[in-house]
């Protein structure tokens, strides 16, 4: 109702950038969304490395069970015996690999980095709605990661029971064999949930209230749409996991019995709570990737995205369906078959909006003037790998098929096709794409292309055979497949997978080198290196603190490639005012504005 009440807090943040700031305020305890995004980037790449190292040890054990692991001698006796991985350590490896990759690598890479970095830049505002809460969101995420990492250094070793922490194993120290690290896992998840909710409240508020004049809902880039829907999922899903983790922590510490069947608790309750969070979490891990890939594919095809509105509604549809399918993780946990069929149907329905997206990406590329730069290559990799991952998802959604392949390596193959082939390829596209905006320099195209092709080959060599050994019956978290006669003939495939996985890991050194080397020695980036339409490219590289001096106006949608009005160029940025464009009408102060 009143003008004061409507003053945007962003104005305050904008004024602050004229004052000189100390190194600590500027780079460590920063409230600037871009610095926070970059902080998230470095921290989550570190956790990605941790998760990758754990994966290598898993592959050593599966490929060469009973053989001493090279370098295994540096690990303590509680983990290895004569260089051979012990079963107790193996279950810690699979648990912590999953935990780190899902909660501390992929999720912060997609949401922590790109929601923070892209949302204000792409909607044309100066900073997040609540910059200080944003800072806390980062520091809590880092704290949660360190608590999780500390699990490896407490007396009884890291958490076990798998990343899903199924009860009663996780609830009772006498069953898991670990006391402190199980508690650290629960505490870390509670802290991470807090961080995620704080971040998501920020993203939602910023997108709703801080869009630049002219940035209507349907002029927002699909990356922002995807991050918006993801934030809604996170805000509603993470608290459920927090509640579950708190109950688990109480079971572990003060002697409650929520999940302990011996005392009347219900282990299935944990599964319901975990997957009620867990399935929306799956879409938290893929929707931002889909959004960013849509931006990059339109750019690389020099065509407007095919079916913009259907893309938006597909995102919303996937997110909605994501709430009613959690039971498909529990077909084998003892479920009324009628209920199982319901979950099967709702799960199969998700294929519809997912297919809409895949066909729209192909429609965008069809007869486009394709530019195969590194982000585009990785984006195409995303589309193809996500399609395979999505198709294997249909196998498991069907209850009769799920029964034999449940908890086998087939599941491992599927989830890596969507998480590595999907999310991580999207990140290999997004990191070089917005690298100039972050650091003012370009990553090397040549190394990037080499990295893409090698990763693509070794990635498929690693994960595709897992479908086959999964069909052959190899269990998901088995310590030594050779103990079963029926799995012995598959052992050469396991060795092949391990060699491929080691090569895949080695190829990532190219990426790490490219990333770090380009920080200092990369080619200086021109202002709009990809000739893109997004608002962020109206700024110099790297973008200055506070972004724009004056809130920019937006004149059109984000995908005006090859538009006739563009003249001799084949792109028409959102911030360019043509003689035929009018400025947006200033926002009316809405009635009853309190």
């Amino acid at each position, binding site marked *: 109702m*009143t*003008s004061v*009440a*409507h003053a*945007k*807090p962003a104005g305050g943040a904008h004024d602050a950038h004229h004052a000189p700031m100390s190194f600590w305020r500027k780079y460590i305890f920063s409230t600037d969304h871009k610095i926070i995004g970059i902080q998230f980037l470095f921290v989550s790449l570190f956790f990605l490395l941790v998760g990758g190292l754990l994966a290598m040890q898993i592959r050593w054990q599966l490929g060469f069970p009973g053989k001493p692991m090279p370098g295994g001698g540096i690990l303590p006796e509680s983990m290895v015996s004569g260089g051979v991985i012990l079963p107790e350590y193996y279950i810690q490896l699979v648990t912590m690999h999953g935990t780190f990759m899902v909660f501390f690598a992929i999720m912060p890479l997609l949401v922590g980095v790109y929601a923070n970095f892209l949302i204000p830049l792409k909607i044309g505002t100066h900073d997040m*709605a*609540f910059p200080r809460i944003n800072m806390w969101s980062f520091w809590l995420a880092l704290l949660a990661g360190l608590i999780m990492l500390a699990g490896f250094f407490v007396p009884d070793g890291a958490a076990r029971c798998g990343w899903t922490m199924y009860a009663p194993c996780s609830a009772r120290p006498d069953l898991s064999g670990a006391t402190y690290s199980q508690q650290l896992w629960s505490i870390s998840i509670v802290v991470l949930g807090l961080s995620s*909710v704080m971040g*998501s*409240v*920020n993203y*939602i*508020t*910023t997108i*709703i*209230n*801080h*869009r*630049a*004049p*002219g*940035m*209507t809902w349907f002029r927002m880039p699909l990356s922002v749409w995807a991050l918006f829907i993801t934030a809604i999922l996170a*805000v*509603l*899903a*993470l*608290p*459920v996991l*927090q*509640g*579950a983790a*708190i*109950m688990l922590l*109480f079971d572990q510490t*003060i*002697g*409650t*019995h*929520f999940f302990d069947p011996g*005392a*009347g*608790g*219900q282990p299935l*309750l944990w599964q*319901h*709570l975990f997957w009620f969070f867990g399935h929306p979490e799956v879409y938290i891990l893929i929707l931002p990737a889909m959004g960013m890939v849509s931006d990059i594919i339109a750019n690389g095809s020099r065509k407007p995205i095919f079916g913009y509105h259907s893309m938006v509604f597909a995102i919303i549809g996937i997110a909605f369906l994501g709430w009613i399918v959690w039971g498909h993780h529990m077909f084998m946990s003892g479920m009324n078959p009628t209920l199982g069929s319901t979950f099967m149907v709702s799960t199969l329905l998700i294929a519809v909006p997912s297919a809409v997206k895949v066909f729209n990406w192909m429609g965008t590329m069809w007869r486009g003037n394709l530019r195969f730069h590194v982000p585009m290559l990785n984006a195409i990799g995303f589309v193809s790998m996500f399609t395979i991952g999505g198709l294997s998802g249909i196998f498991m959604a069907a209850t009769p098929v799920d029964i034999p392949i449940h908890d086998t390596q087939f599941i491992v193959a599927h989830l890596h096709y969507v998480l590595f082939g999907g999310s991580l390829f999207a990140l290999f596209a997004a990191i070089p794409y917005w690298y100039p905006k972050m650091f003012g320099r370009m990553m090397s195209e040549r190394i990037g292309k080499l990295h893409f092709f090698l990763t693509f080959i070794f990635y498929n060599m690693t994960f595709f055979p897992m479908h086959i050994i999964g069909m052959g019956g190899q269990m998901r978290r088995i310590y030594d497949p050779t103990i079963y006669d029926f799995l012995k003939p598959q052992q050469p495939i396991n060795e092949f997978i391990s060699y491929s996985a080691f090569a895949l890991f080695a190829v990532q050194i190219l990426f790490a080198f490219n990333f770090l080397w380009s920080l200092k020695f990369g080619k200086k980036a021109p202002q709009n290196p990809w000739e893109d339409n997004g608002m962020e490219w109206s700024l110099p590289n790297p973008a200055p603190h506070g972004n724009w001096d004056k809130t920019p106006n937006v004149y059109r949608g984000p995908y005006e490639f090859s538009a006739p009005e563009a003249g001799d160029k084949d792109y028409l940025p959102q911030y360019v005012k043509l003689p*035929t*464009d*009018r400025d*947006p*009408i*200033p*926002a*009316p102060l*809405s009635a*009853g*504005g*309190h």
Partner: protein
Amino acid sequence: MQTTTMTDAMRPPVPAEPGAGVYSNKLGMWVFLASDVMFFTALIGSYIVLRFGMATSWARPGAVLNVPLTGLNTFLLICSSVSMVKAYAAIADGKKYFLRKVPGKTLQDGGLKFWMLITIICGAGFVGVQVFEYIKLVGHGFTPTGYREGSVLAEHALADPVKYGAGVAGMYGSTFFTMTGFHGFHVTCGVISMLYLYFTKVLPEKYSPQDYRGIEVIGLYWHFVDLVWIILFTIVYLI
């Protein structure tokens, strides 16, 4: 917009983004409350599943818990919601003062400082009564793990297992202390936030009828916490 050179060829102007029509702090609080709803949903949903999945029934209402005392406490919390509304209305009318010393005026005419203080006292009183209740319950032998061996409640449960829900005491304690404890934690956070606002904004008279966003935002949170308690009181104490 002055467009003296407007021609038919120009595109129609697009209105700037009004957003949600509310300021960001308030919108952010609403989004946070949605998230908090899901948190309590996890706890309350688990409670329902656990309670009705039991082979034997819960202790009868009032057998273990002191319902009259908590009823009084509920009244205290509802009063604090009323005083929060009064504080909001006071500052909207520009009444920043504590009490106006005018003959014929009653407490009804208190200002922001008065009603916020009442809200804080009621909120802190609620937490205090809850702590007192916890101490009493643990003294009787009601703990998160069930009825403590050798305690009064354990003896009662032996004598009358149905009334005291002897078989399911562990789950009763687990859910009771988790749900009410986290609600108490929310109230405590609210009281601390209100104290902070009281000393940094209310007493220095930073709020004006033009801008009292802090009061409105904390008010939203406070009413939410109050509402959660109405639900918890009903399902934990009364049924």
